[in-house]
């Protein structure tokens, strides 16, 4: 299998983890959505969360930048540290946290603005650009990292909503990258895209690994195998198995992981 041979060669940085989650529990009202999850997100790696629908992988992802704060009934316990700092500490402003932990969503959601303004949005609100030419540089760099520059450089002031689905998603990735986050969360970024656009985004994710830690939620096991170095398998709100992607896909320890990967549960 081609995918399998590729992941055998991908190297893993063994450093102090970027994000350290310990005994994380999440409740929606009375529903216990996540139970005692422990995950380490390493620097400059792609970590994939896989698991059947409703297993809590997206919920957990959204805990990493406190997007769940916008849901009233949601409660998070346990410890979650970004570079050793508890992100659920009262002194941490979720707005600042999200500037460090960027997010890309399932459906491309470009703002109803021009392509340029879409990418410039984050740098502007965080004051990253000192001048107009500085901002233009940031936008160009972000669009290049998003592998979109060549396609849109002549129409930067056309509306972002006029791009194709795959281009829109790459625009959203460029937009997230433009604020220079340290971690990039991706919630099923390819589920609304066709195979060609998916391949482009996957290639992009592999590129992004050089500068960021990437966490990606995916329903496609092939995708997890292709792009990630570490994989976490969630089932019914629990983290069943977490390890190197090669290990998980070729030699899983837990029988549930094996069943899911071979298609028996899910």
């Amino acid at each position: 299998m081609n995918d399998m041979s590729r992941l055998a060669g991908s190297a893993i940085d063994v450093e102090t983890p970027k994000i350290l989650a310990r005994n994380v529990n999440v409740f929606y009202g009375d529903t216990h959505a996540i139970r005692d999850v422990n995950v380490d997100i390493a620097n400059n790696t792609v970590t994939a969360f896989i698991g059947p629908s409703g297993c809590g992988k997206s919920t957990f992802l959204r805990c990493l930048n406190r997007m769940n704060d916008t849901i009233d009934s949601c409660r998070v316990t346990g410890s979650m540290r970004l570079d050793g700092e508890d992100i659920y500490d009262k002194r941490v402003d979720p707005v600042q946290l999200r500037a460090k932990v960027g997010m890309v969503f399932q459906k491309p959601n470009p703002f109803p603005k021009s392509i340029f303004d879409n990418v410039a949005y984050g740098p502007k609100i965080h004051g990253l650009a000192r001048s107009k030419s500085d901002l233009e540089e940031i936008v160009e760099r972000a669009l290049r990292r998003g592998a979109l520059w060549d396609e849109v450089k002549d129409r930067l002031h056309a509306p972002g909503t006029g791009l194709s689905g795959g281009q829109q998603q790459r625009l959203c990735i460029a937009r997230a990258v433009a604020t220079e986050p340290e971690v990039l969360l991706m919630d099923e970024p390819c589920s609304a895209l066709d195979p060609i656009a998916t391949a482009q985004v996957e290639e992009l994710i592999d590129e992004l690994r050089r500068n960021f830690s990437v966490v990606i939620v995916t329903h496609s096991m092939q995708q997890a195998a292709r792009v990630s170095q570490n994989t976490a398998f969630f089932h019914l709100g629990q983290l069943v198995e977490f390890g190197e992607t090669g290990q998980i896909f070729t030699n899983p320890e837990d029988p549930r992981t094996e069943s899911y990967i071979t298609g028996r549960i899910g």
Partner: protein
Amino acid sequence: MPFHWLILILIALGAAGYLAGRKRALASADGDVRQLHSLPAYYGWNVVISTLVPALGALVLWLVLQPLLIENRVSNLLPQELIPEGSSAGLVMSDVRRLATGLDKAVAENVLTAQQANSMRPELSDIRARLGEVGVALGSDVRPEVMRAAQAYRRATASGTRLMGFCVLGLAIIGLVLSVSRTSRDFWARNAVERAVMALLIAAASIAILTTLGIVLSMLFETRNFFSLHSWTDFFFGTTWAPNFRGDSELSILPLLWGTLYISFIALAVAVPIGLFAAIYLSEYAGKATRSFAKPLLEILAGIPTIVYGLFALLTVGPMLVNFFGRGSDGVLGVDWMAGATSVLTAGVVMGIMLIPFVSSLSDDIISAVPQSLRDGSFGLGATRSETIRQVVLPAALPGIVGAILLAASRAIGETMIVVMGAGAIAKFSLNPLESMTTITTRIVSQLTGDTDFASPETLVAFALGLTLFVLTLGLNILALYIVRRYREQYE
């Protein structure tokens, strides 16, 4: 045949048709419903529709046309010299109608026999006294020509009504027989009923549209009459509004239009920021509990009759403003800029309060329609709530909000009661918001109330004003709908 009998017979025919259609359909399929093209009830309804729709249509048409035709014929019977000086044929005709209904009533109460009613001659009998017995008071003694016309009117009405009964029943029976004979198991009764339902819906929709057309046409005719009496250059380009009944009125719309636009502008200046901020709070910040009571509470404001707002303007806001800006050294500010409670500011502020729920409710709907994914996208980039609202939500909702504001503006321009009570009655060009001014709507009210003569330009000007107002608000509404529609296309 009395009218209610006709209706009862039609209902009975319809019911019988339903049963007959159903039964015949079932019989044609040997009692097996699955052999039928449609469910048995559809066959029944198909017969009911073909029985009643042509019959009732003919009935309505007949009821509308018969009086017109008969009056036309009877009024030809009346000699010209009967019509007194300064009166019209219509007045004499109403005498005829009155006498005819009087005779009907006398016959019904057995004061007169039908024979007597038809042959009675006013020269020989005291018809006025006889009719007085049954409670029909006639203004003067009945003249023979009028009596003869009334008798002709009665005869024509009676024969017309009889003919109507035959025609309507005939149509009903033809429809019944035809549709029952057509009923068989291969007949597509369900499709026929569906077509009838569609026709009903189309009829309802066209009534709404035709009414608008009717309003416009009636205004157009009266406006044409006005412009044949008064120069249109004075109406559109003159600068003075000074109606009098000496025949040399200056009737220009411009001072009124100025008052209307000025008051509407102040109203929007009050309503748009407050309404918009309220909408943003409700849709973006308020929790579920707050929203669930604050939104209905705000919308209650929209249900208050505008006359109540008018009272509020006259009794509360006006005196309060006078207290601030008037009364010289006794006032709060110690200035004497405002003489009375009625002013542009009074009417504008109160109208603005009236429009707040309008703006906030529409804007709230539009802001809530902005996809959550856009907010998530902005939050995910580390934007705060107000940054997200200012830079993502509002720009996305802007076309819809502009549409809402234009709709509010067209309400402000057409608003009457608040300005009648709060704005005053002086037509003039002035920039001072503390002065009284007047609007198009209040002038329409004042030109049409009281003793009016529908042949003078001073009265007819109301229609020209009304038509201008109609065109103005129609234009605003079309613009608003256009903008709102363009916005809708964005997220589908």
